């Protein structure tokens, strides 16, 4: 699903540099990235999603060589094939739960919002236990509920690849388990790549990649 060759990436400002000679993640695999802060885990997620592009090397995600796509095509690729989950949830406060879940369908014309999508959004929300809160202001939700909204948003378009950046970082143990359950249940047909500092959850993943060994 993800193939990286001779990757060399640096941000325009700052000394950070990520160099990966080769990395391959198989379709349907669940992978956890671990490693010290600043080692480039989140950057690698962004590279895989096409949010940033490398100076050198190739990144192939699914059938797309993301590193070679122009900006517009990378955005279209992300909205259709990638589900992104953030540590801070990144919900829009001015939208209610339902509109936050449907957001990807309102911000890129590659996706079409129709009755079927709305029905799927309701089902997804029911399944993760927030079906009765669809018209609620997201500021009035608990942390766990917010992350569940963010998960619904990421999973609604049925992505091939789910990239989760410390999805349980802000959650208590109970919600942590709940969110991971949802993530694994709904992303079982997708490739799941998660950045985590929580070593107690690593045994859930098919593969664990330590950045201290991967990146140079």
């Amino acid at each position, binding site marked *: 699903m993800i193939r990286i060759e001779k990757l060399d990436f640096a941000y325009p400002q700052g000394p950070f540099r990520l160099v990966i000679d080769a990395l391959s993640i198989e379709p349907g695999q669940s992978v956890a990235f671990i490693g010290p802060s600043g080692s480039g885990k989140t950057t690698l997620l*962004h590279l895989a999603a096409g949010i940033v592009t490398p100076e050198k090397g190739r990144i192939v995600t699914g059938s797309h060589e993301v590193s070679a796509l122009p900006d517009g095509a990378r955005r279209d690729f*992300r909205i*259709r094939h990638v589900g992104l989950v953030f540590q801070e949830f990144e919900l829009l406060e*001015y939208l209610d739960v339902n*509109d936050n879940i449907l*957001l990807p369908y309102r*911000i890129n014309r590659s996706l079409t919002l129709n009755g079927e999508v709305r029905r799927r959004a309701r089902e997804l929300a029911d399944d993760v236990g927030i079906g009765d809160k669809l018209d609620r202001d997201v500021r009035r939700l608990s942390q766990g509920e917010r992350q569940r909204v963010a998960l619904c948003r990421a999973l609604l378009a049925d992505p091939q690849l789910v990239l989760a950046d410390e999805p349980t970082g802000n959650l208590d143990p109970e919600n942590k388990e709940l969110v991971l359950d949802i993530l694994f249940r709904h992303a079982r047909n997708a490739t799941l790549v998660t950045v985590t500092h929580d070593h107690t959850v690593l045994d859930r993943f098919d593969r664990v990649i330590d950045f201290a060994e991967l990146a140079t």
Partner: protein
Amino acid sequence: MSDSLYLAWRYMRHHRIKTAILVASITLIVFLPAGLQVMVSRTAEQLGARARSTPLIVGRKGSALELALNSLYFESKSPDAMRMTQAARIRDTGLARAIPLHVRFRTRKQPIVGTTLDYFAFRGLRVEQGRQMALLGECVAGADAARALGASPGDSVVSAPENIFDLAGVYPLKMRVVGVLARTFSPDDDAVFVDVKTAWVIEGLAHGHAALKEGEILSRKGGTPVANASVVQYTEITPQNIDGFHFHGDPGEFPVTAILAVPHDAKGKALLMGRYLGRDEVCQIVEPVTVMDDLIATVAKVRSYVVAVVVLVSSSTLVSAALVFLLSLRLRRREMETMSKIGCSRWNVSSLLACEILIVIALSVGLAAGLALVTNVYGPSLIREFIL
């Protein structure tokens, strides 16, 4: 675009106060110059139309503006009175018709205009309900005056006392409404018209009372008896007591506030104006068009100063609004980044922001247009209030 509009609308609804402040600022920026323009144009149009339809006004020397405003709009402070003989003087020249005006009293807030039937013909006023006034103590009301007073033919209206603390002053007169005029969208709609003699009754120059008995006469000054206080003075003119009303003195000496002079031709107008140029002349003759043009020019001059100030204030408000928008963009950077990360197209980010601007501008322009409409209706009377 509809999704961008929807998201923009939700954002603005969520930030109601910020949006309301922005809309209010831009509404003012749009409305102030436009509203001022509408107000001045409409005022000029209305003032000009009324003035153009009135060739000449004769009145006591003093403020020409006050004379013109009182005679055309019945609103200004009453100019000094002159004698009714001035009307005969104009008629005697053979150069013009003379229509006396007596505008000093009010019934509630409506002006009581004492005049003759010539006034109705001159202004093209038509009685819509009831009939034309025919007797002393009768009146016809303009369309708006009738509505404001809640009066229709058969009802009565009472003149307002000039000074309620003046016990020896003029009694209010109860007048019978015999007709209501058709609306003309002019100051005539707000007035209550009476015969000039009725106006003199209100002024106390004519009065009515029961027949004097011998014991009630205290003395006689010339031909005028002085009666004691037991004699009942009438405060309403009725068919039963109308014969008891009489004038003391020569009606030619009685006051009017102005005389509308309607020359027969241009030459007559020029000649008539020349008659009032004498140094010892106690009266003046004014061309309302000239007076109103001067007034409009003054208003226009004030408008240009105000517009200059408004432009300055608007510019700074626009800059502030732009600054608020830019600051809000900085505050929303994370939101925009999240949308970009998820896959929001650049076009969508731009259209979302454009929709927000569009909604603010649309709301502001809509509000400004509404205010301009209100100004269009009420602006001229507001300006007259300020001027008067």
